[in-house]
């Protein structure tokens, strides 16, 4: 009886500790840098051919939603990753099938849920950033929403305050928010946040 109680206590303690554990994003970033770099490069090169975003729609990362943006209309297709018709669609939109397949498998590997190119404005001028949401793998208590690491890749070095928070502008001390979230420095061009919203 005493043993059983101690097991329960141990189990609860493990749950609490693991739910409070936070992975250091800098360590995570350095550990997965080659894969993240590959995702970034492939996405950017394919995006230049055809604007698109990718979303994994299930927990097993086997179903994806491909959003293709043409000049007049946005098409949203749902696929299973093993389906052949995915290749047909990629080919139709002049995307490189092997590059896209490697992007998809790398996203599955990191449990990256969503990738997109977002527009943002500085001094009324349009800029783009790459937006990547990665499922945060920690113990999840029931009724608690899942969290995501959101990484943003800028094309130019950004400005940060002393606490490493992303600033809107060099001359202004206003924090820049993306999807209503404050972002923190990973390096000059890459920022992160932890959010319950992946897009």
């Amino acid at each position, binding site marked *: 009886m005493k043993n059983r109680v101690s097991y329960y206590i141990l189990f609860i303690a493990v749950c609490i500790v693991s739910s409070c554990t936070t992975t250091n994003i800098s360590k995570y970033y350095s550990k997965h840098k080659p894969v993240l770099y590959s995702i970034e490069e492939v996405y950017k090169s394919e995006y230049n051919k055809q604007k698109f975003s990718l979303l994994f729609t299930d927990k097993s990362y086997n179903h994806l939603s491909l959003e293709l943006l043409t000049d007049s209309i946005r098409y949203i297709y*749902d696929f299973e990753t093993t389906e052949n018709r995915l290749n047909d669609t990629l080919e139709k939109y002049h995307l490189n099938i092997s590059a896209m397949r490697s992007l998809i498998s790398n996203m599955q590997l990191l449990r990256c849920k969503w990738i997109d190119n977002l527009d*943002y404005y500085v001094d009324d001028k349009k800029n783009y950033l790459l937006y990547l949401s990665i499922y945060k793998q920690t113990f999840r208590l029931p009724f608690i929403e899942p969290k995501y690491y959101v990484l943003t890749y800028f094309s130019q070095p950004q400005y940060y305050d002393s606490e490493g928070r992303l600033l809107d502008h060099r001359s202004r001390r206003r924090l820049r928010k993306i999807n*209503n979230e404050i972002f923190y420095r990973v390096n000059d061009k890459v920022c992160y946040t932890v959010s319950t919203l992946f897009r």
Partner: protein
Amino acid sequence: MKFSFSYWLKQFVQLLFYIYIGYPLYAFINIDTTQTSTREQAIAFIDKISALQPSDHWPHIKPALFLQNLKENIHQPLLLYEGTNTNFCGYAALSYLFMHDDPLGYAKLMLQLYTDGKAKIRNVVFQPSQPIKDVAGSLHFKGALDIRPVEQMWFLCLADHFKGYLNFFNTHYDPGDEDKLWASVNYGKFNRMAKRLFNYRVNAVGSDLMRPYIHDMYEYLVNSMKQGITVLYLNNTILRKKYDRIKANIPSHYVILLDVQQVNDDLVNITYWDYGFRTMRQLTPSFLNKIIFGISQCTIKRANEK
């Protein structure tokens, strides 16, 4: 004597006067039709304006950017943008109706709001409060809405003027309220705005919490589109695969239905407008039933139609 025969005779004659002369005269003066205009008229009107003076009422709106935005909206109405993570989708859908059927009225109303700080459309008088005037033109981190002062001004004015039960606990604007319940639009409020502002005949089915029971959704949508512009009130959490426990079972998004086609028994193609873009996606009929909470068919009223 107050109730003598002559008194009642006089009342009767007055009644006959109202019935046969007064009401027809009133109806003739106030012809109950939806105001419409063509895009060509709006383009001809807006292209004559080469510059605007800064407005004392809207300190953060840049005149050149305002005019450019207004011209863009007239020439390319589909570009109208509600902003990322705002609750302006209801107002954007409403503006689509306005710009589709009365672009000239839209252009004039926006210019009137800009120059006078207030404007009137039908019996609705927009007199935005000072916090609205102070913030319009300075909303930021909302995507393309950052550089679209016309949308900022118009959506903020609409949210400031029209209130529904969702706005009950937050009726006055504070910075950041564009993302909160202050700006939200419940289904009844949307239909009321469409009727009061533009005098549409609105045929609506659905509600904020329960899906409408429609036996054949595809047929219903096709027939609805034949009558007029169809606005769908959707569960965006399911549609866009967002994860939100609170919003998982309720509608939160308005889109304009542009086309619906049956591919086969298992798939339907729908094309809709939102976020400044047309989107086409393939859905199963059961999924379509699951996401639709409201269908508003907005039809232009012809002369004296009730």
